[in-house]
């Protein structure tokens, strides 16, 4: 499969993860991480469940350290995976290791499938937000927002303002802009982040993605999202967040400084993400349905407990 360095489990997992990222190019690295974990379960040769869980935890740690900018999604997704894989272990009647391993693999695969379907589900739930003649504002290059825009039927013509936003990689915003521009029914306008206040009065609704959805229904997303959200609130424009449920995370920031700094900063020590409190969010569109920010906590409880 990948170059295997004998004696080094860490390297093996790193290679696996990078391999899975390369295979699923369009998909979130979180999904690659889950694939890596399932692989870890399959290849496990220890004799107790505890060992296996320890090994998964170790793999999660390794995956998290090398994942770069999608760290938030990867860590929440891995945590949910572990939760799912070990949830019903106590119910297994035979204590045989092989049975437990099979069960964990099965549950893990179910979870993986749910994650893979998530983006399409969110996109198809998000597309009806856009009506004919709508003027929308899009901030940061979210894959799921892009999918939603593509899913809008062709007879619905609308205008999208896309912020240039701080670039992580030189080409990613261009790719996003290029993809949106390809849709015949979308008129695209590219604007500087500083134009947000100016443009907001003409906007009907704001669409953003999220890197993580936190416990109180707020979101962590590309820096600038907070400014967009405050502007939108001030001018009474609805702000919709499109996010897959694997991004739901147990973090509970009360202000910007509460966001762990490992997530907060990007290259050159510049702030990469900001925290948008729930009061600025009209609705979260997720694969678990449409949620008001207050409903997020209940969903989280159901997912993690």
């Amino acid at each position, binding site marked *: 499969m990948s170059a295997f360095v004998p004696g080094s489990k860490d390297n093996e997992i790193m290679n696996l993860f990078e391999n899975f990222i390369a295979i699923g190019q369009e998909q979130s690295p979180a999904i690659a991480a889950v694939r890596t974990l399932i692989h870890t379960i399959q290849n496990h040769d220890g004799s107790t469940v505890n060992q296996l869980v320890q090994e998964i935890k170790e793999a999660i740690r390794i995956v998290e350290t090398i994942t770069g900018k999608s760290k938030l999604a990867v860590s929440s997704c891995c945590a949910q995976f572990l939760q799912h894989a070990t949830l019903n272990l106590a119910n297994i009647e035979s204590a045989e290791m092989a049975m437990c391993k099979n069960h964990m693999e099965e549950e893990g695969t179910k979870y993986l499938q749910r994650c893979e379907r998530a983006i399409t589900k969110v996109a198809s739930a998000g597309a009806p937000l856009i009506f004919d003649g709508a003027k929308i504002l899009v901030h940061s290059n979210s894959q799921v927002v892009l999918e939603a825009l593509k899913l809008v039927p062709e007879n619905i013509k609308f205008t999208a303002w896309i912020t240039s936003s701080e670039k992580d990689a030189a080409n990613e915003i261009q790719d996003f802009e290029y993809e949106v521009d390809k849709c015949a029914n979308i008129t695209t306008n590219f604007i500087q982040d500083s134009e947000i206040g100016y443009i907001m009065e003409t906007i009907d609704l704001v669409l953003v993605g999220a890197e993580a959805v936190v416990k109180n229904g707020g979101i962590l997303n590309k820096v600038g999202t907070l400014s967009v959200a405050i502007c939108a609130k001030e001018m009474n424009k*609805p702000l919709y967040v499109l996010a897959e449920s694997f991004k739901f995370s147990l973090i509970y920031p009360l202000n910007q400084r509460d966001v762990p700094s490992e997530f907060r900063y990007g290259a050159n020590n510049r702030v990469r993400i900001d925290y948008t409190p729930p009061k600025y969010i009209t609705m979260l569109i997720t694969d678990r*349905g449409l949620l008001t920010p207050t409903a997020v906590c209940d969903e989280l409880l159901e997912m993690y407990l």
Partner: protein
Amino acid sequence: MGSVEEDTTTSSLLALEALLKRGQYTRSGQISLLTLDIVEKYVQSNCWKTAGDLITWLQDTAETLRKAAASETASGNLILRLIKIVRDDFTNRHRSRNPGLMSQNSVDSEQGLDFNLEIPELRSDVQNTIYELQSELELSAENIAEEADKHIHSNEVVLTMGKSKTVEAFLKRAAKKAVFEVIVAECAPASNGHELAHSLASSKIQTTLIADTAIFAMMSRVNKVIIGTHSVLANGGLKAIAGIHLVALAAKYYNVPVIVLVPMYKLSPEYPLSTDINKTTNRFVSPDQLLDYSDGDVYSKVCAYNPVFDYVPPNLISLFIFNIGSLAPSYIYRLLHETYPQIKR
């Protein structure tokens, strides 16, 4: 036997459909009782054998009624609730038969259940819950009114708009214990506030009838706004009679609490997604209340609209009083979760 029973169910369904299409109804409570009657007939009949059959029929019926009148959600809500009840009853029976199968994961609790399994006890279970629902529907206004003493105190000034049976019962119940004043906005062009004012005054409640234009002027003296609604949407907003939004905004300006009285069948799982609710679920009726037909000449020169509903965002509402308890708008999602079946994941 089955065919005769099926005929009576179908004919009463057709009658209800026609009623909805022609708009020949005044209260959504009436619609929900009629819907429940039809469901009861069907449940008693031999037309279905398994929970799967029943759920399919319920879904089809909801769809038929929704098509007949998209803006009338009461029957759809009730049927959704019944679907949830049938599922729960089935799951409970199924569990008690196979206790080993219980899954701890609440997300997957219904997965792998075969609704086409025949469980004879299901009929009587569903029957019983329908009886419970029937009495809940009939008693909903009364149950809401029981809360009245907690919310209306002596010497208070209450403002309401238009006419709602629930609000009427609520105010009359409060009047048994407290002496207070009611200001009724007439709610033009239907002006059914007149009826309410009349009815309250004849029950010896001190009542003032005002024009809708006077709402803001009067609001500074008001202690509480108490209103009914057409339906409560999934985000905690209201779809209410046109004019309620302006009452709610005036109340917000003076920080007057807005209390909404709602029977459970008005709780709708729909989200107001489009920024402009007029595009989706509003209803525009004949403008004859605005312009007389005798002014025919004018009609060719002006546009006259007569929309029925307003959308009121959740941040303007302080409290909902349901027949099963009181809730803040931010908790509506919880109630939805408990009342209606979950979306398939």
